[in-house]
């Protein structure tokens, strides 16, 4: 409980992101393109392992930062998910309210990955999560 409160306090905002993955995940690097495809649910295997993306609610600052770093500048993600749902029944990745929830959720669910502020690196390690460097956007 104390740890959870600390995580909430720590996980406010930071421009540097890291990727966190379930302890049994074997890959240790990822490209921006792969991240894009995984979060658009157009790819669900990486190095033959199942990958399930986890994100924040659409107005969360971390979510906005992630989209700015990973998605193309003119790509409208909200619109993409509206159209995916209506045309193909595909839903967006599950969303959590904050970084503390994300860390705990990823630690308990095999195959899951998410992104948090680099400030939470030690907390993520404490939960046994795999830390993956956030890929540099091209250019």
């Amino acid at each position: 409980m104390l740890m959870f409160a600390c995580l909430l306090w720590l996980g406010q905002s930071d421009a540097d992101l890291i990727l966190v993955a379930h302890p049994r995940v074997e890959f240790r690097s990822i490209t921006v393109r792969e991240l894009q495809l995984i979060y658009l649910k157009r790819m669900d295997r990486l190095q033959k392992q199942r990958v399930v993306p986890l994100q924040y609610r659409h107005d969360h600052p971390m979510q906005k930062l992630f989209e700015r770093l990973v998605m193309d500048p003119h790509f409208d993600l909200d619109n993409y998910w509206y159209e995916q749902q209506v045309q193909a029944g595909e839903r967006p990745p599950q969303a959590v309210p904050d970084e503390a929830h994300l860390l705990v959720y990823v630690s308990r669910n095999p195959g899951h990955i998410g992104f948090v502020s680099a400030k939470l690196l030690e907390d993520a390690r404490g939960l046994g999560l795999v830390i993956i460097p956030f890929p540099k956007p091209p250019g």
Partner: protein
Amino acid sequence: MRLICLLLIGTWGLGQDLPSQPGFQVHDNLTLGGWFDLIISDSEGGPSDQRIPHAFVYLDADFTSGFRAFLEYASTDIQGQPEETQLQRAYLEFKHSTRAKWRLGQFNTPSGLWKEKHWYTMVDSNRKPAIADFRTIPMEALGLEFSGTRTTAAIEWDYSLFIARSQDKELNSDLGYGADLSFSIRDRFRFGSFTYQFMNSDESTDPLPGERRALLLYTESWLIDKQLMFRAEYLHMDRDTLEPTNGAYAKIKWQINKKTFLNYRFDESDDTRTGQPQLWQGQALTAGYWFNPRVRARLELGQTRHKGSNWRSEWSAWVGFIL
């Protein structure tokens, strides 16, 4: 009354803080959703101020382990004609992964880039291109579909195979089969083809029944930070008892920002609807504004003619709401 409802929904939709997905979660795994739209058009020498509202309602049950059931009804209300309600889609789906997905039931024929059934809310123009409007490919299929996506570092492959009977009320058919295969390079260039072979033996929907073979080739490019999009589709149809027919369109779209776009399309086709020997031609300039993912509007100036005759103009305004 329906127009008032549409306006009320639209006004409500404009002021909403949007959820990240459409529809209402009626239960953990059950979503009720839909969309409504309205086209008002005024054409030279045609019916003026014509209003065509459409309403779609769907129920989406997402079970665990990749199983899903989807049911969708549509209603169209054209002035002076009885309101028409029909089943659009009803299928069971099993998704093993993004590489392998099966659908059993009534689904949209997976053909090319133009997705006929949802053109109202998803596309960039008010009038359909001729290759879709002239109903040469059945758009509702009852059968089995296998589809998927495979990705590598630079290339994404999309494939779909199906065996189905047409449920299209204007183009009924016996069992047919088809495939759609496309690949995109770095999300910038897409090339694909679709082929469909089916037998039309229902004389009530077609006075000249026989085997038909459709080949659709398509391409799409996104340039300048994906702000400029070029797309073209070409359809060739072989028919046992008639001359082959051809149709194509090309369009260019400028995505000014996330909400606003301009689109120009030119299309040309053999006129399979009236059988006139001259080519049918159409062009449309469309401005679109997406207030948010839920509320959309388009204004269009379209022109059509048979080659060699004068252009006939049509203004149309469209507004759509996704629930």
